[in-house]
């Protein structure tokens, strides 16, 4: 095999490995987004259960308002992240606000 051909073969093998590296990095990135979504959903659920345990008061109404805003923001971020994240793999927080 002549030298130029060896160069091309090496380049070909390197491209394969770099592609494998990029695929692995994408998987890591998706897992990171998934775990961030899950952690956020979990903290929202915990916050709601705390609000539900509060006595009826202005403080509870305020907390509920702020919680609803956070859920709306979460839903927005979830939709954005799910464009490149596997939709079935992260938690979709479905909430009945009424």
């Amino acid at each position, binding site marked *: 095999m002549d030298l130029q051909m060896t160069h091309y073969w*090496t380049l070909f093998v390197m491209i394969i*490995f*770099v592609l494998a*590296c990029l695929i*692995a*990095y994408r998987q*890591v990135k998706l*897992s990171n987004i998934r775990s961030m979504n899950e952690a956020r959903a979990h903290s929202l659920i915990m916050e709601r259960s705390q609000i539900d345990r509060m006595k009826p008061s202005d403080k509870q109404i305020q907390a509920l308002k702020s919680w609803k805003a956070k859920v709306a923001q979460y839903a927005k971020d979830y939709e954005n992240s799910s464009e490149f994240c596997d939709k079935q793999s992260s938690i979709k927080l479905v909430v009945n606000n009424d």
Partner: protein
Amino acid sequence: MSWQELAYKIDDAETLISFTLLCISFFLYRVTSTNISLAIWVLANFVMERLAEVMLDVAKTDTELIRQLWYLSFVIIDTICVWSIYLSHRKLRISFDKFSVFICFSFTTMAVIQLVRYTDRIIFETEYFAVIYKYGILSLSMAPMVLMALMLSFSIINFRHAQE
């Protein structure tokens, strides 16, 4: 002292400091996403340094072989490292944190830089990316160490504040 000698000295110091940081972090937090990634990072750095020494030795007798293997071997190691970080997290069921994502980003960027440099130097013989390669690889290998040192210092300061 040539640039290459200086780069090896910096790399050696970086591996040693990273290993010390890993020991401290492992002592404080045990098995976490950060520690797994940092352990793989330290191991990869150590292997790459030793491999570079061996390849430079072999290059005295067979230059062409090393010209082919130099960039290829680093790309292979970078790829194996990103996959091992991903698989170890899946196996241990640990969520990725930002530091692990950053380590994987560094490995991936280094693999891409190696590929670009090989194409630039061996295929096209243009030498456009010589400077980017020279400083890019060194700064990418230093960045996780600096980040880890900052993270550890902040967490130790926070821990002391919480105790007061």
